[in-house]
């Protein structure tokens, strides 16, 4: 026998299920009125500094079908790379957004400011990116990934550099479709499966 550790083990995850919207986006579930408004409707307030962009996409399963019941959360810094609460952060950027795949089309939309680069503990710099967390029925533990941008310099990003199979890097890079407009699809499985993170 040895001494026991003082550390605890994380509580296990369970799927968010098909009715996640009731708890997280009640208006979407057809349940308005409990709260004044849903949490995290927008990551920015009027006056946020930087370029306002819109990212559109879908969460696609292994059969090619876009999920109609996925919920996502995004987290990002302001245009200068500062997170809410840090010194000098843009007060108009909360950085947090909650959004769902459309019930009919499966499409999601995120309107935000393009984030700035963020320092890395190693001393390097991370290319601009938005952290994304995806939950849904059939997803037993939330999936983490990142949205990078094809019109930024991603060449020295520490995370992208660690992807050994270079064709997979593309799965983390939003494609520019027009000025300020990007497309970012998440493929849960199959051809071009998105790189998900254990981070």
């Amino acid at each position: 026998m040895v001494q026991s550790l003082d550390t605890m083990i994380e509580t296990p995850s369970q799927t968010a299920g098909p009715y996640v919207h009731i708890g997280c986006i009640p208006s979407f579930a057809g349940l308005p009125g409990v709260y004044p408004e849903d949490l995290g409707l927008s990551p920015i307030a009027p006056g946020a500094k930087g370029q306002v962009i819109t990212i559109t996409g879908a969460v696609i399963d292994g059969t090619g079908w876009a999920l109609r019941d996925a919920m996502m959360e995004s987290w990002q810094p302001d245009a200068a790379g500062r997170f809410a609460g840090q010194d000098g952060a843009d007060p108009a950027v909360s950085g947090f957004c909650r959004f769902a795949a459309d019930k009919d089309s499966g499409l999601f939309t995120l309107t935000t400011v393009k984030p700035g680069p963020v320092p890395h503990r190693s001393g390097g710099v991370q290319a601009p990116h938005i952290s994304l967390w995806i939950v849904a029925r059939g997803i037993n533990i939330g999936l983490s990934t990142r949205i990078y941008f094809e019109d930024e310099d991603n060449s020295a990003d520490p995370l992208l550099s660690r992807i050994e199979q270079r064709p997979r890097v593309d799965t983390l890079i939003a494609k520019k479709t027009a000025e300020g407009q990007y497309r970012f699809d998440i493929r849960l499985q199959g051809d071009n499966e998105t790189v998900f993170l254990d981070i």
Partner: protein
Amino acid sequence: MKDMTDNGETDAGPLIPRQRHMHPVPYDPEYKTSVPRSPKWPLLSMESTPSEETGPRFGHSLLGPLDNNLILNFSKDGSPAIGERILMHGRVLDENARPVPHTLVEIWQANAGGRYRHVKDNYLAPLDPNFGGCGRTITDAEGRYQFLTIRPGAYPWPNRANDWRPMHIHISVFGHSFGQRLITQMYFEGDPLIDRCPIAATIKERSQLDRLVAPLDMARARPLDFLAYKFDIVLRGRRQTMFENRLEGM
């Protein structure tokens, strides 16, 4: 980068890596929807960065007075929701056994008949006009939270030919870092459907599933009013950095 906690302590270094075998398996044929929705490639493992170590904070001003009272927060005229009245309470801690204060906890659940108030739920059991099914609160300085609600009913769901969900309450917790984000479910002590549930069974480590089963807590039950169930939640911790203010290799 330093990040002050509400305790006034300095949060430590990177997040402690997840022990994935202590979580449900992503792919489980007994839970059919997980089959097309589970990644096949290994996850990309990397030490956390400020993107995961920071996270949204929500203040107590967010909350309305009935946000953690599901018996009354959807009632139009003050009539209580139908069902067995329960108090759900516990603490949010991290892996270092420290309380996680001032963090948002959200719950959602079916009504006493097992029906959700959701556009997609058309189960036979009726809706309760006085029950919405969502609640939220923010932990206090010691990481404590509580909800007053009704015991949710079990309900059937399309999976294998005759699958039923045990009574459960869905719980979402933020912590202080986006990388701590967790959604899970609380089950109730003694429910025979837990051992028959393919969603519960996605957790292969039995001791971990047991941690999702809330014990009846008569010390917190209120005579002639409600029963109580205790549910503690442990989020990822951050590595203590006693030696890390020095240069690498010192």
